[in-house]
């Protein structure tokens, strides 16, 4: 019995160590090179001259404007209207961008910010974990406890 418990603890230790090593070695190592992803997309935070703070995925600089996808939470003040063959997202009656994807809780919206209006543009690099990771951790914590009780 004691031997089984010891083996289990050693297994946990090994699992934890593997996770730490993966993140520490692979994640933190700076990948200097000339190999880049096939599809454009860069996680960014943008502060505009109007004081608006935006987060999203920067796709391109086109006609002097930064083009990026951002998620707008669905609500009573958010609506989608079709105009001239395109779906536009309105927030409080003002157009903010075009629809990329309508999801259950939010709308992926393509926005444009003129370069001269973008005061601070920061790239979020090596952000491997986020809210999805935290939610998955909580979900699997309860799943693990339920399995252990059985």
């Amino acid at each position, binding site marked *: 019995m004691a031997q089984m418990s010891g083996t289990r603890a050693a297994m946990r230790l090994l699992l*934890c160590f593997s996770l730490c090593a993966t993140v520490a070695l692979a994640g933190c190592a700076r990948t200097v090179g000339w190999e880049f992803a096939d599809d454009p997309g860069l996680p960014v935070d943008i502060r505009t001259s109007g004081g608006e703070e935006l987060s999203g995925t920067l796709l391109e600089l086109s006609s002097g404007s930064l083009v990026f996808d951002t998620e707008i939470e669905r609500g009573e003040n958010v609506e989608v209207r079709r105009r001239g063959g395109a779906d536009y997202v309105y927030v409080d009656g003002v157009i903010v961008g075009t629809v990329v994807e309508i999801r259950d809780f939010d709308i992926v919206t393509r926005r444009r910010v003129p370069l001269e209006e973008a005061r601070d543009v920061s790239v979020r690099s090596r952000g491997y*974990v986020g809210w999805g990771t935290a939610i998955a951790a909580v979900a*699997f914590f309860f799943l693990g406890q339920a399995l252990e009780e059985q």
Partner: protein
Amino acid sequence: MIHRAPLLLLVVLAVCCAGCARSVPMAALDAGGADVGVAVRLRSGEVLRGRLISLTDDELLLDTHHRLGVDVRLEGSAEARRVEVRGEAVPGDFVGVESGDTGRIAVVRRALDADEVARASFYRPAGEASLGPILSTFIGPGIGLLLALAI
């Protein structure tokens, strides 16, 4: 003692993850240690690919790479060093030569006026783009399960 070790390592893991993430201004990508790939189409029709060094409201600075070979040569000496492709000098400042798996690569830094740029697309490093989904798929469930077993 061995029972507490996984929790201790989870703390280390959280610190590692937090330490990896960083926010780097696009005006100082090189100094901030962030790699961003860029493909640029100029209004003149010229297409450039390389690594973005900085992006401000009036200028885009990028490093372009040229694999040295029969058609691509290094000419001149010291400060007058330049890269020539089929006898034509590549616009920009010569930065240096890097050694890669596929041979020697000459790096040329070029500043572009924002008005010159018709379109520029931005890319994450290939390693980071592929590692992200893998880590986010395994780390969350891994931490949750380990905590459930450890507590």
